[in-house]
């Protein structure tokens, strides 16, 4: 093993990965699936079904509505009960297809598998990734086919696989690496071939020594491309794209730029696994591994949920609440970047990496006090911004100033709010400013 890699700033919260030893289990079939048509960044998919239609497992029910969009597939066989709206973790209404399961779970004709993918044309593979509706499964859910098509004028020389899973509590990627290393490495080779890249790194934090060992052993067999498994210093937010690129290659993505500007592409472990399944078995993306965890739960674990399963079912699957326990907070995702939600009717989506429950004694409520100018947020901000100064500007609605202080580079990792002794809701301020400045920039672009 070589030297250990790291990046600027960050924090090290309590890891609390209590479900790390629990194997992935397939979730049972549920009578009802609420499948949102917008499980990705970009335009919501166009529905291909009507109320009363019969659908099969893996059948396409939504087609991409624009370049940045994604296909949606049915999680099971059954009847379309309604075309409705459902709640998203952000609290907005998403268009969705409600599918009533018939209990048969009849699979549709799979996409034709491509067994000779090593010799296949990259365009065919890229098309397959689009057909299978694959999106970034780390959380941002950016459509993968867009990421895999290299923008004109840019060149890619490095592929980075994100097996960091720096969020506390979550163990879905960890389990996937441990249980399916062969599939993941085939997926890695596949993506490397699509991009024509010779340099591949898999970054894993060294609190997962078993995963590093397993993947390192398997990766030794690969010579074209050579796959390096790199242990990383445990530091949140190492799994953020720009931080991971810096930790591994020491290249800095310019402000407002993309990884392609520094010749890198980053893919999440979950997406790699889904790509491998789509190409080798012809299976579209309709299920994912999600960690259900939290101290109020009877048991915690990692389940392979089909998209559209409600959080309530997931919590029930984990044995429900302990006797006398109550939930103070329900979080979609991890504790640092996840969204606090208030309804258990929200469905599991392609980017739901975890469902976290917190007991009342674990949730602290802070009243926001004035900034102390202590500068701790400057020390931990991985983007090297000055969150304290920004928050004061934003509080006074000085969004132009915030823009000049590069608020648009904020990745909303939450390190600043985590470390703030005055209990200031810094991430909420940043989100507000990013939305206001973003609206202004879009208006300026439209006016042009």
């Amino acid at each position, binding site marked *: 093993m070589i030297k250990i890699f790291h990046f600027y700033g960050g924090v090290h919260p309590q890891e609390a990965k209590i479900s790390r030893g629990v194997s992935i289990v397939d979730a049972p079939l549920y009578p009802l699936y609420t499948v949102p048509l917008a499980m990705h960044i970009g335009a919501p998919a166009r529905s291909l079904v009507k109320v009363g239609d019969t659908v099969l497992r893996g059948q396409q029910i939504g087609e991409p509505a624009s370049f940045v969009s994604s296909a949606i597939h049915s999680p099971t066989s059954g009847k379309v009960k309604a075309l409705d*709206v459902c709640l998203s973790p952000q*609290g*907005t209404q998403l268009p969705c297809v409600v599918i009533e399961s018939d209990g048969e779970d009849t699979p549709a004709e799979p996409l034709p598998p491509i067994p000779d993918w090593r010799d296949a044309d990259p365009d065919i593979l890229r098309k397959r990734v689009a057909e299978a509706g694959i999106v970034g499964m780390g959380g941002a859910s950016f459509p993968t086919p867009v990421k895999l098509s290299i923008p004109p004028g840019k060149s890619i020389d490095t592929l980075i696989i994100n097996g960091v899973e720096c969020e506390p509590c979550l163990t879905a990627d960890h389990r996937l690496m441990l249980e399916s290393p062969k599939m993941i490495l085939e997926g890695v080779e596949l993506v490397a071939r699509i991009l024509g890249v010779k340099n591949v790194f898999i970054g894993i934090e060294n609190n997962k020594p078993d995963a590093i060992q397993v993947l390192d052993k398997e990766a030794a067999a690969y010579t074209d491309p050579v796959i390096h498994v790199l242990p990383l210093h445990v530091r949140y937010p190492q799994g953020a794209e720009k931080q991971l690129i810096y930790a591994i290659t020491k290249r800095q993505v310019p402000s407002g730029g993309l990884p392609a500007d520094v010749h890198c592409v980053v893919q999440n472990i979950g997406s790699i696994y889904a790509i491998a399944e789509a190409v080798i078995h012809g299976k579209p993306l309709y299920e994912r591994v999600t960690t259900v965890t939290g101290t109020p739960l009877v048991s915690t674990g990692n389940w392979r949920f089909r998209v559209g399963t409600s959080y309530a079912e997931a919590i029930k699957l984990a044995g429900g609440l302990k006797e006398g326990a109550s939930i103070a907070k329900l979080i979609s995702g991890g504790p640092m970047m996840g969204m*606090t939600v*208030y309804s258990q009717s929200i469905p599991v989506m392609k980017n739901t990496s975890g469902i976290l429950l917190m007991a009342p004694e674990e949730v602290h409520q802070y009243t926001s006090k004035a900034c102390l100018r202590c500068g701790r947020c400057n020390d931990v901000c991985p983007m090297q911004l000055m969150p304290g100064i920004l928050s004061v500007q934003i509080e006074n609605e000085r969004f132009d100033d915030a823009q000049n202080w590069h608020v648009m580079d904020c990745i909303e990792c939450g390190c600043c709010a985590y470390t703030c002794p005055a209990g200031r*809701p810094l991430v*909420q301020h940043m989100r*507000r400013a990013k*939305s206001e400045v973003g609206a202004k920039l879009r208006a300026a672009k439209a006016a042009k």
Partner: protein
Amino acid sequence: MSTLVIIVVVGVFTGIAIAIVSKFFGVESNPLEDQVKELLPGANCGGCGYAGCSGYAKALAEGKAAPGACAAQKPEDLKKTAALLGASVEQKVPKVAVVFCSGDDTNATRQAQYNGINNCRDAMFVAAGAKTCTYGCLGLGACARVCPFGAIEITDKHLAVVHKELCRGCGKCVQACPKKLIRLVPRSAEIHVHCSNPMKGAVKLRGCKAACIGCGKCVRTAPDNMRINNGTALAEVNYGNPPAEELAQVCPTHALRK
């Protein structure tokens, strides 16, 4: 004694200096501009597209702008302005802002406790404010803060209410509301449908007792004055021909009210 002499001498010299400076460097102010400015509301809201009321007054006096661009100007003041400038102006329908929501704490329910920043626009980033009705007023006062006339009150039950007598219809609150609940409507209308949720009636009632359930009672009673917004369970006042105040009594949920 010498102190007094110095003060007097300095005073005389300064006076002379000021007189000379004002004679040679003075900026001539346009008396018309001052008169026009007096007739503007002085809120500097920027709704006219100029840098505050003085900017608009200057443009008016120089003939670069036409009277009537100020939404907040009183009709009689507009008439006076037009007379001063010798321009004709068509009388606009005076407007007033209305918050189309009845969901205060007694009517609407919340699904979670929100402890974040005390501003609706910020609350939108935390599960959109956690109200059961995702269309409802959050009552955190983004509109009240931008109102230049202090016409919006956040009641102690967390609902924004526009005071008609203070509102000048400038429309700043319309842009400030993240839920898009505020609209400018003709001042002559007495009653409005205070609901903005386009979903089915039964769904709405789960989150708010005062929602418009789209029963159509008002439309049947006064078909000329009311209509159902097409495709939704939401009645709407026909603002071309607003109904009388008494119609509010037929509404079973009291969404149609003053």
